[in-house]
């Protein structure tokens, strides 16, 4: 069965890896990215000696910002958006 949540996260991870690849090559660093399920609006970074790579974790609340954004932009009208 297709798991849409996981598929979507995988797509995001693939994109972040692809976007950061040139800079990782240029700076000669290895990078791991993960989205821990823990519901926190936070991110962290550390060096993982076992993989000799930097690890970036982006916690799940950062992936669900649509509602707080909506509450701040609900006064936008279509005309406002034609900038």
């Amino acid at each position: 069965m297709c798991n849409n949540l996981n598929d979507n996260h995988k797509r995001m991870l693939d994109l972040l890896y692809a976007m950061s690849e040139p800079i990782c090559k240029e700076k000669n660093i290895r990078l791991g990215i993960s989205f821990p399920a823990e519901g926190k609006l936070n991110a962290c970074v550390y060096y993982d000696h076992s993989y000799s790579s930097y690890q970036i974790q982006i916690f799940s609340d950062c992936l669900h910002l649509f509602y707080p954004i909506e509450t701040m932009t609900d006064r936008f009208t279509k005309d406002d958006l034609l900038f």
Partner: protein
Amino acid sequence: MIFEHSCNDTYREELNNLFSSIILLHIFFHECGHIIAGHVDKSQSLLYEYDASRKGSFAVQEHEMVADWWSTKQLFNLMFHAVNLFNEDNDEKLRILKKITILYWLSLTLEFQIFDNKHPNHPSDLSSLTHPIPTVRLYYTIEATREGISDVLLQSGLSLENADKGADIIVNAVLDTINSFLGIMNVPIDFKKFDRDVVECYMKLRDIPYEIPRDAQYLHLAPLPDGYRESIEECYRIINEQE
């Protein structure tokens, strides 16, 4: 866009989806910025972006400014390439640059406000914060954006002088639009370009690495250009005269 959207989404839902995507990218590249700037000590445990036990200072805030700045420049470069700007004529190029600048800056306004609400920490003494207050972050983002646009114009074949001029024109043109949006966004950010406290805090963050020799191992922004302070003072003088 990174997040799923459907063909039934309204224009505003699509826009909010776009904001979500830009915010996620900024969070990610901000963390990359900490790595690139040397802020991640290999012998240290996890460096949480928001950590109540983390002790704040202007030096710590300067690290956040460098990470924000680096992220902004990376993202501008990526966004301009994503829309294949280099094949467009000059008018279209200008229109797209303005649009991206507005979208990016509004996204960061939302991001900083959301995180500030979730992790409130507003002591009277700003030196004890781990992150600059949102208004200061937005202020220096304008400067970082200006550099990002200038880089892209340079890549488009403009001379350094013309690229800088072009970036100034674009940034000045979008500031009014951004201020209009702040007026209708439900955020308590009162952004005034020449608010003295905001600019003073920004200049303090720019100065700090050149006052603390032990921070020499980290990546920093260059010292503020000669004449920057004088220009700011001149702006204050004009504003005071007008008032």
